[in-house]
């Protein structure tokens, strides 16, 4: 386990120091520390209930930590409300897809462009030229994102009517609309067949390159993580039991035990 470095290195996008979260008597995340390098594809694995999603919630501010410090690009972000964290450029998807179901795919994406809007409410209401231009730009960018995930043809369909895999892709498009520097993907491959998983792997690599992203990824499917990620962290019962490149982690006895013991 890596000891927390005293000062965050400039190329570390996200750093967790001693993150801890207790629910009643249960410690869901226990003193977890790690750093994610710029441009890295960082995997987070572990058995069910290991605290992976809780860790995501801690990073995105949905759950306040019981203890620990979180740094984003060298600045402390612990205790910030989720929308503040999102505005800093940390975007996420959800394990149990949380799209705005009654709204169209396009609306879903445009909502996530919220922080990019500059036009005032009044200017937008009366459709002042600048506001209209901005609205058109946002719409075009949103359409481009839908194009990217292959949903441009169904931009006006209701999100809840999408197939499962399409909903996952729409969520990624929505997260990208935030123009993040750090993207958190919570089990993006869940429910996909091997073919789709392969496509997804390529897709994740390509968006990392295209948008210069750092990606933090929770995945149940270990081979996918091992093939995709630069480094992998393993959580078990809230503890960080291993951290390193995929080959190292794969041979770590503690990890093997955690998975076999499941």
């Amino acid at each position, binding site marked *: 386990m890596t000891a927390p470095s005293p000062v965050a290195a400039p190329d570390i996008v996200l750093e967790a120091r001693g993150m801890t979260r207790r629910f009643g008597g249960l410690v869901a995340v226990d003193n977890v520390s790690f750093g994610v390098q710029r441009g890295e594809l960082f995997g987070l694995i572990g058995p069910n209930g290991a605290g992976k999603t809780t860790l995501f919630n801690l990073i*995105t501010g*949905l759950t306040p930590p019981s203890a620990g410090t979180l740094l984003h690009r060298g600045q402390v972000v612990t205790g910030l*409300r*989720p*929308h*503040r964290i*999102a*505005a800093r450029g940390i*975007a*996420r998807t*959800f394990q149990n897809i*949380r*799209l*705005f*179901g*009654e*709204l169209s795919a396009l*609306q879903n994406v*445009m*909502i*996530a*462009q*919220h*922080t990019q*809007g500059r*036009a005032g*409410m009044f200017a*937008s*209401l*009366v*459709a002042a030229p600048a*506001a209209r231009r901005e*609205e058109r730009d*946002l719409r075009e960018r949103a359409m481009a994102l839908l194009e990217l995930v292959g949903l441009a043809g169904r931009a006006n369909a209701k999100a809840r009517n999408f197939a499962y895999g399409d909903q996952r892709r729409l969520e990624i498009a*929505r997260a990208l609309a*935030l123009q993040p520097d750090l993207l958190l993907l919570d089990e993006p491959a869940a429910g996909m067949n091997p073919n789709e998983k392969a496509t997804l792997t390529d897709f994740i690599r390509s968006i990392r390159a295209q948008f210069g992203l750092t990606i933090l990824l929770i995945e149940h499917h270990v081979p996918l993580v091992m093939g995709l990620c630069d480094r992998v962290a393993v959580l078990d019962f809230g503890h960080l039991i291993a951290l390193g490149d995929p080959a190292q982690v794969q041979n770590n006895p503690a990890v093997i035990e955690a998975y076999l013991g499941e």
Partner: protein
Amino acid sequence: MGSFFNTYGFLLTSMVLAASLALSLYLPLMAGQLSLASPGFYALGGYIAAVLSTRYPAAGNTLFPLWRLLAEMLLAGLASGVLAVLVGVPALRLRGIYLALATIAFVEILRVLSLNLAITGGAVGIFGIPQPFSTQIGYLWIAGPLLLLSMLFTYRLERIRVGRAFVALREDELAADSMGISPTCYKVLAFTLGAVLAGVVGAISAHFLNTWNARQGTFDASISYLAFVLIGGSRTFVGPVVGGLVLTALPELLRALTGVSGLPPWLGQFLRDGRLIIYGALIAIGAVFFPQGLITPDLLSRWRKLQP
């Protein structure tokens, strides 16, 4: 036609005002906030107009100047807006039915206050409120544009960034929060917009009703406005408008029906004595058979497709 407007001028204007009040409830609901506070702001706006226009009556025996009515509406809107922010910031941490109950409490507290304060005229209230129009239908010149503007406002709102933020909060507050939308900020904004509209309508209503007292803006009103929104349809701004218009007209429609010639006497008798029984039954039936409300977005889009 003149006779029609004499008889129904008041009703037409009340329908329009009711539709605006329904919109004032719809605005916070757009952001997913079930607030029943509108009657409180409505009462506040009315008191502001009533106090100002009776304490400082217009010179001469002429109509109350229109610019003063507009100034009162502005002031009522401002005051309601400020109060809404003060109440909204703590109250909007509550969700769903809890928020509804807190806003009901707010309305009731305002009611008891207005019953006891000297400036609000206690139980009798304020009367002899000056008239800016010579007929009741004349109020449509101010209520009509207000409703149209509010509708236009809401229509545009649904298509801009702020409105999208509201809708996102309604659909999934957590996800919206994670997309950079501040729940507190936009909930309070939606709540305040509704409050401002209710306050403005109150200012008109005080003149329109000639009198204002603590019985305006009560719990009953809260529930009526909710019925306007839910029976009309809470998914598009057209719904509350239709709901407000229809449900306000309904009791008077039933009254008019008792006067239709050729009805068997027993039916006429029941229509008269049982007017409210029928009204209540229609509300229950409306809720049960139109659970999405009379007007739904799907219905609207189908209508749009029917257009050539």
